[in-house]
């Protein structure tokens, strides 16, 4: 039986496949031709500033919004033609997919389990199991409106995990949380990921994408501006930088001079930073790294510290978009919802 892979369940090579997806709100092109793939069992981070189109994308992939053009399949189901089947395979957590504030944590989870057709006793057990797993057992009977921000997000996560979805959407899971609570939610997400779940995560925090995602798609104004594995993306923007800290401050310029004289292929831009007490050298390959270290050794410079670092994602974003990832004024997607 041959069948086009986009129409058969589970036949796509990717858990999520998006091709040329477009959504306009009046004049605003919220999503303007996005392509992306999420492989089974991996986490794709969709990184972009506020108003980049992240939430609109997730809403289309959850059948909450109809795309204007393009195609998208989740677990092999088409978002437009097979919305009912598609909804069986997804879990959604986000700013706009929340729990019922008036109900207790347990009642919320029980209700969702019943809506997912678990028989009563199983629904009760599954609710308790997830309360335990997300450390909410003590708060199980309190209405969700009395929960702290972090507890609310954990309850949201628990709610979207009840049906063991094949693909989990996490739409800005930590926006608006303080750093400590953010770490708490990250741990939960990491444990969900460790179980082999497929996750599409949207975020405006570079750190969050770095912590949680395998692959990254960077979007801005509804378009993909870069994609790849996190280290690849960083390398694309610029190689590593080596930082050399000599014991003797006076060696700073001597080291910079020596590196310039040696004329190593590509190593030219060594610069001494008097204030920080370091020499910075851009490094393009592992071989160059060895050559630089060898040179320092033959000249006999005494060093306190030596290291390389990749550019941060903030720097990546700056390099890719030519602008800082600042919060733009709310896009219509945020207002309309």
């Amino acid at each position, binding site marked *: 039986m041959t*069948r086009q892979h986009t129409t*058969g*369940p*589970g036949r796509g090579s990717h858990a999520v496949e998006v091709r040329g997806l477009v959504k306009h709100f009046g004049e605003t092109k919220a999503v303007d031709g996005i392509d992306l793939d999420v492989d089974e069992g991996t986490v794709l981070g969709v990184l972009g500033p506020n108003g980049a189109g992240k939430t609109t994308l997730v*809403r289309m992939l*959850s*059948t*909450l*919004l*109809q795309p204007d053009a393009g195609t998208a399949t989740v*677990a*092999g189901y088409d978002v437009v033609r*097979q919305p*009912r*089947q*598609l*909804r*069986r*395979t997804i879990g*959604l957590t*986000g*700013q*706009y*997919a*929340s*729990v*019922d*504030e*008036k*109900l207790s944590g347990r*009642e919320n989870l029980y*209700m*969702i389990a*019943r*809506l*997912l*057709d*678990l028989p009563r006793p*199983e629904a009760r*057990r*599954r609710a308790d*199991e997830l309360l*335990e*797993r997300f*450390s909410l057992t003590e708060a199980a009977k309190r*209405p969700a409106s009395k929960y702290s921000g972090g507890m609310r997000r954990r309850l949201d996560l628990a*709610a979207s995990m*009840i*049906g*063991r*979805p*094949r693909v989990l959407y996490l739409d800005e899971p930590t926006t608006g949380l303080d750093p400590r609570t953010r770490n708490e939610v*990250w*741990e939960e997400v*990491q*444990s969900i990921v*460790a*179980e082999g779940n497929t996750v599409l995560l949207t975020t405006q925090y570079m750190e969050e994408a770095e912590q949680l995602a395998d692959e990254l798609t960077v979007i801005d104004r509804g378009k993909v501006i870069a994609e790849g594995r996190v280290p690849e993306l960083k390398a694309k923007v610029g190689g590593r930088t080596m930082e050399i800290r000599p014991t003797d401050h006076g060696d700073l310029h001597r080291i910079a001079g020596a590196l310039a004289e040696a004329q190593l292929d590509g190593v030219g831009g060594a610069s001494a930073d008097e204030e920080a007490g370091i020499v910075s050298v851009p490094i393009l390959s592992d071989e160059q790294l060895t050559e630089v270290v060898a040179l320092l050794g033959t000249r006999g410079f005494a060093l306190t510290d030596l290291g390389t670092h990749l550019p941060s994602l903030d720097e990546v974003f700056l390099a890719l978009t030519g602008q800082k990832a600042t919060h733009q004024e709310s896009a219509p997607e945020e207002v*309309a*919802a």
Partner: protein
Amino acid sequence: MSTETVQTRTEPKEPVPVPRQAPPSPTDDGRIGLRANLRHIGALVRRNALQIKQDPESMMDVLLMPIIFTLLFVYVFGGAIGAGGDRDGYTNYLVPGMMAMMSMNIAMAVGTGINEDFRKGVMDRFRSMPIARSSVLLAKIMVEIARMLISIVVLLAVGFLVGFDVEGRWLGLLGGIGLTVLFGASLLWIFMLLGLTVRTAQAVQGVSFLVLMPLQFGSSIFVPTDTMPGWLESFTDVNPLTQLADASRGLVLGQGAVGSPVLWTIVWSAGLTLVTAPLAISKFRKKV
């Protein structure tokens, strides 16, 4: 974060065997069966009932409104309106009519409720789940009908206390209640549509109130329409609340025409439902 801590913390004691959703057969079109649909509606009705338990003030309209309005009209206006100070006569006239008023006042609440659900994001979760989208609305309708019935029971209880007398026409009373609920259900769809269209819950309330007052007072609920000027009478005569109040009155008191107002009430209810229910459901499906 070390992997060990994650695993010890996340290992459930007795994992519930929820299979990771296996790829369903290609013949599965994802339609929700009737039994599953009823189960979903049940779970959503339970949700609404729990909300009421959590927030008992939300039953104030149901419990207090019939008491206050009945006492107000019977004792403040009753003596003056009833022919020759006949307060008891007016009570008998008023109570069946007020059932119509209750159905409308209770129906109004559904608009604000649905508006809130959207604002709080609960609706997005429901709409991204494998349940019939109409089940969310049907559950609301069922809960509101229950609230309507409670409010009618309270109204009748107060009515009996202040002298309302059906003179043994209990079947007629049941018929009146049935008609009232039928008409009330058709109103629920209108207010639901309003709740889905207007942006904030406050606006829903404001608009509802504007519609409510003229409809209720421009009807035969409180006074017979024959003393009204002609232009007003022609409005009150087509007002469905007049038809409903007259129908209930005919059934309960055994006086006045019965057939025509009953028929018109049914026509109005069916018409309103046929027009607004599909609109509300489609609006619900497409709402951004």
